[in-house]
């Protein structure tokens, strides 16, 4: 066991998988000589050469489509979105060809690809670099969506995503790359479709993902002091949701709080709320509650930015009200 930074955990995963299978390759902007804008592919260019770690021109839709064609003909590409927001330019290829092509081809082709990169609201990066694409891509059929939150799950999920034969959209978070913790040594895999029960509790279930896991953990410290026993679940898989784990928890706590960083309208929480209502209506003591970012372009100003996304104190307040039945 050794302390590993999250970006290095991802790098280790990619390195190990590239060593294990020569068909695994990386493509994207500045992934090669520069080592990736967050250093997730540092030194891999020297180790594996310019074809396996391919520096592409700035042409998101075309190089994503190229990854699709490469996957259809036997390779297992990992596409880096320098910032996940830039993949708005690749929406065509991700939706039509990564997501739908296996189906429209009647099973002729499989598209084993990983599309990974930093998402989420950073620190005063401005509206365009602070987008949460997971919500925009959520309706696309045929793709799996995961969001990592710790060095341990980053590594295990990256390895699983690379080995999966389906397209996986893999969300990292700009503010989590320097998280550090002891991670298991060597080859370990996390299931792509399993939520992580971060903390067991009996009073209120909190469902969250990505960076908000850490905001929730802060809130849980306070809530524990205040006598609220939270069950904290990191969704990990945003598509499909691990409804088994979610349902089991709600049957125990009868109260659910959803905490997310994406916008409220058409967000991950919106879909989750609908599913919780469908699956767990009779188990709920109070209506499910959702804490989401404001429906606005993320402002540059630091104070306004903080007001845009959910803060730990809001989680504390909402959980207490849920617990007291006063919401």
């Amino acid at each position, binding site marked *: 066991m050794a302390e590993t930074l999250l970006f290095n955990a991802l790098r280790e995963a990619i390195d190990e998988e590239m060593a294990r299978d020569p068909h695994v*390759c990386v493509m994207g902007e500045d992934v090669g000589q520069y080592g990736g804008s967050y250093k997730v592919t540092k030194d891999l260019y020297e180790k594996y050469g310019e074809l396996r770690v391919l520096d592409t021109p700035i042409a998101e839709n*075309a190089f994503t489509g190229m990854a699709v*064609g490469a996957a*259809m003909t036997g390779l297992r590409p990992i596409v880096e979105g320098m910032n996940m927001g830039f993949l708005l330019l690749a929406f065509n290829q991700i939706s*039509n060809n990564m997501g739908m092509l296996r*189906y*429209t081809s*009647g*099973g002729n082709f499989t598209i084993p690809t990983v599309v990974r990169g930093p998402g989420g609201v950073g620190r005063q990066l401005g509206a365009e670099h602070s987008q949460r694409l997971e919500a925009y891509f959520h309706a696309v059929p045929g793709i799996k969506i995961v969001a990592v939150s710790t060095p341990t799950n980053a590594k295990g999920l990256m390895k699983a995503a690379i080995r999966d034969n389906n397209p996986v959209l893999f969300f990292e978070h700009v503010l989590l790359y320097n998280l550090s913790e002891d991670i298991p040594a060597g080859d370990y895999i996390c299931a792509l479709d399993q939520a992580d029960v971060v903390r067991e509790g009996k009073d209120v279930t909190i469902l969250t993902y990505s960076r908000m896991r850490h905001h929730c953990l802060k809130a849980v410290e306070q809530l524990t002091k205040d006598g609220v026993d939270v069950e904290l679940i990191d969704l990990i898989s945003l598509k499909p949701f691990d409804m088994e784990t979610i349902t089991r928890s709600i049957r125990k706590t009868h109260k659910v709080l959803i905490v997310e960083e994406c916008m409220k309208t058409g967000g991950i929480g919106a879909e989750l709320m609908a599913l919780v209502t469908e699956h767990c209506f009779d188990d709920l003591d109070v209506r499910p509650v959702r804490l989401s970012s404001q429906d606005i372009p993320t402002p540059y100003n630091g104070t306004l930015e903080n007001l845009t996304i959910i803060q730990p104190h809001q989680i504390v307040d909402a959980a207490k009200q849920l617990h007291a039945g006063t919401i």
Partner: protein
Amino acid sequence: MTQADMSQAKTSQADASADPTDVLAASGAPACSGDVSAVGLHAERLLNLYPSTPATVSREEGLLLYRDMTLGRRFEDKCAEMYYRGKMFGFVHLYNGQEAVSTGVIKAMKMQHDWFCSTYRDHVHALSCGVPAREVMSELFGKETGCSKGRGGSMHLFSKEHHLLGGYAFIGEGIPVALGAAFTSRYKRDALGDASSDAVTAAFFGDGTCNIGQFYECLNMAALWKLPILFVVENNKWAIGMDHNRATSDPEIWRKAAAFGMHGEEVDGMDVLAVRGAAQRAIERARAGEGPTVLECLTYRFRGHSLADPDELRAEAEKEFWAQRDPIKRLGAHLIEHSLATAEELKAIEKEIDAEVADCVEFALAAPEPKPEELTRYIWAED
């Protein structure tokens, strides 16, 4: 003189002219009012085309080309009939008139070795690749025996077995996929050390598609990495109702290759031997690791954009000009003239094709529908 030299000559001549406005007048380029003559600018381009070296074919090759083009034509005619009889639905884009391109390029490539990528106008490309007519017609009828299991339809024909990367219904989105297949060829050779990896990919698309970003993005990457790919432009002058000359700053698409430092060639797309000759040169370069080519084939579609298009915009004189250059008749005449086949032999082929087309319809009509309980099958790799 190569095509590149030729254009150079044309350009320098123009440059030598004293008054630049004279050049514009002489070229007949209108401000934006469409064609100047009855047959149109596209036809004039064909008439002024510098002849390229055509392929020479043996009797067997000639008959194979004739058979493939005839199959393409008769299959499409049958599709129109079936569409109007209510046997197929949706948008159906026929290929009549353009057969020399599909046959000229694909039959110059290695079946089940090289890769092919098409658009929504994909029936005939699929047939040239070797996808059985039964599988293509079944797909158009939405049957389980279709090459895409009835899930794709006319615009989404796929066959991994026949290396058909697919029909793509959005403009330009197939080009990057084709580029990816070409990348795999190079990757296998240079990263995996497989010296036998020499597959070439052909991407087919229209004139209108040459105005979208993905086309240029892919030209850049293909040239940059010397990928074994042919960008086959089927310039039929029209993008639904948009005249090519009203849509693009330089209608000579093959010239755009030069900006990316790659080979470009224009060819009479109504002459299968001319297309085959140009394709053979491009394939040879690609296989030798010398990189990509833009091959612009001047052609014309004999029918409307799709079976839903009333085709009211195109001038009769223009249609007539191109109809006289029917690529199948032209090949037939060539084969007879060069004593490679007799008229009777060609007739016999046509009869065989008619039987094959009738058989595929019968097969498709009797074929089973996909099972309702398999509605969600093929979403994931595991099922």
